[in-house]
């Protein structure tokens, strides 16, 4: 009887995965959605057009808080990937691109996206020290960070074929595409503020926007 129970246990463990793996997949999806929210809000807050009835500082604050929240879920996503016994990944693979033994290209794209995100958040926190120009230069890499994260999910995601994942991915692409179009349209109608020279004038102009 014990042998039968053990055999069924082994059979169950072969057909079912680890809870860590499920959480890894789930946090990956949530990270993509949150990152999309961050990117969309970042695009919307940049322009001097009001975003609905919300003041711009609210949109900016939500953008910043959402980015930190994304980092939290990203931490869980990486931790579960490292701890899960299904795939052999270590913390170095999550930070150093294309060094992972498991799907190096797709995991590497995720690592590049993570590195960019860390750089963006670090420079945002140090914005007062490094100046607006350097901060903005690094912040432009967001436009690479989001597609890389999307490619990472599409390439290595286990649920890419599921209808709900297709719907979520399509919604994310649509939201970012729409906000980029909105921004391009706003750039045509509202002239870009001219940075005169020096750091203080750039900050002043940013405050007045």
């Amino acid at each position, binding site marked *: 009887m*014990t*042998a039968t129970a*053990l*055999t069924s*246990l*082994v*059979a169950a*463990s*072969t*057909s*079912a*995965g*680890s*809870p*860590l*793996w*499920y*959480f890894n*997949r*789930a*946090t990956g*999806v*949530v990270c993509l*959605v*949150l990152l999309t*929210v961050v990117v969309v809000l970042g695009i919307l807050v940049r322009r001097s057009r009001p975003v609905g009835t*919300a*003041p*711009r*500082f*609210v949109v*900016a*604050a*939500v953008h*910043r*808080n*959402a980015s930190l*929240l994304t980092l939290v*879920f990203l931490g*869980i996503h990486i931790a579960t990937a490292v701890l899960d*016994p*299904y*795939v052999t990944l270590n913390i170095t693979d999550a930070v150093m691109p294309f060094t992972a033994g*498991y799907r190096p290209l797709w995991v590497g794209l995720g690592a590049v996206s993570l590195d960019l995100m860390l750089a963006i958040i670090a420079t945002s926190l140090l914005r*007062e020290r490094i100046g607006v120009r350097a901060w903005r230069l690094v912040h432009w890499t967001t436009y690479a960070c989001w597609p890389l994260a999307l490619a990472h999910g599409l390439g*290595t995601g*286990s*649920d890419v074929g*599921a209808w*709900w994942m297709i719907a979520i991915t399509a919604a994310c692409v649509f939201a970012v595409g729409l906000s980029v179009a909105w921004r391009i349209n706003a750039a045509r109608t509202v002239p870009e503020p001219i940075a005169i020279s020096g750091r203080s004038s750039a*900050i002043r102009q*940013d*405050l007045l926007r």
Partner: protein
Amino acid sequence: MRRPNDGRTQHAHRVSAARRDAGFRLTSVVTVGLAAVGGLGTGLIAGAVRPSADASPASTTTSIRVVSPSTSATPSASRTAASTPASTKAATKAATKAAATRAAAPTQAVAQPPVATSGGS
């Protein structure tokens, strides 16, 4: 005097105090909402994908949990092996044999001889 630029105030300094307070409140509500949606979404998706074992990373392989008679089955003890019928059969057979060995092993409790009480009045 230089205006503080800590992020919270950089866009807020030009609006009235009441609107600013309402804005900060709205920011908190939206942030907490996003966190709740994220947490709830994680739970829901993790629950939804749980039964779909075919979506595991090793879709062409099967994870075999090797159970050692001496150690308990921990996550580190699991191994991923190719899902050829032969290896699956061998692993199942080995696990069954190990269980049978454990079941047949003598128990640790050893019958103690009765303690001879010496003497007596």
